[in-house]
């Protein structure tokens, strides 16, 4: 059997990939996908702990994270569509009317 630690390491790696992606990518949709990746890394961690501790709390938490992520996805896509309609770009470097 694969030890549970490995899942945690995988979750850590996925989380880091997502975080780095958010910081270096410039397309709003790709940034959003990286955030989803981070959320799923969290889900993996929760499931692993749930298995390790033999408690259901972690799995319940994952349910809620999934639904919240879906609601966030809907709102996020709506925001990105709205900005695309007005500016015809989703590059976050071009979305810079306000600074300082």
């Amino acid at each position, binding site marked *: 059997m694969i030890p549970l630690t490995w899942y945690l390491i995988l979750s850590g790696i996925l989380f880091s990939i997502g975080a780095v992606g958010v910081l270096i990518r410039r397309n709003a949709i790709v940034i959003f996908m990286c955030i989803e990746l981070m959320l799923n890394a969290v889900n993996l961690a929760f499931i692993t702990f749930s298995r390790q501790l033999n408690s259901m709390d972690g799995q319940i938490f994952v*349910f809620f994270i*999934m639904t919240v992520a879906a609601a966030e*996805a809907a709102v996020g896509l709506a925001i990105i569509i709205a900005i695309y309609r007005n500016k015809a770009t989703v590059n976050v470097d071009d979305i810079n009317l306000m600074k300082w």
Partner: protein
Amino acid sequence: MLISYLPILILLLVVMGFAISNIIISALIGRHKPTAEKLSPYECGVEPIGSARERFSVKFYIIAMMFVIFDIEVVFLYPWAVAYKSLALFGLIEMAIFIIILLVGYVYIWKRGGFEWE
């Protein structure tokens, strides 16, 4: 423990080696006579129309958004379905409330014209 996976690893290496060597060998000794017909993408024998890199209408996004919301809410139906018998009437009422709230959202989208294509 991991040692039991060794045969799979060997099989994987053999398969990959076979596939890669086949591609290389055929590239080396095969004859190359490219024509326009041969280079066009294969679409079940039908002639391709236009570029494959077309933009999708933004309307697909809106449909996708609504799909995502209602799709994921189903996740809460699973635990209920598993424990349906023991939750009995209480679970049924709980789920009914949940579904009614979703239904309000559905009616809202409908009334706001979210399902109209044009």
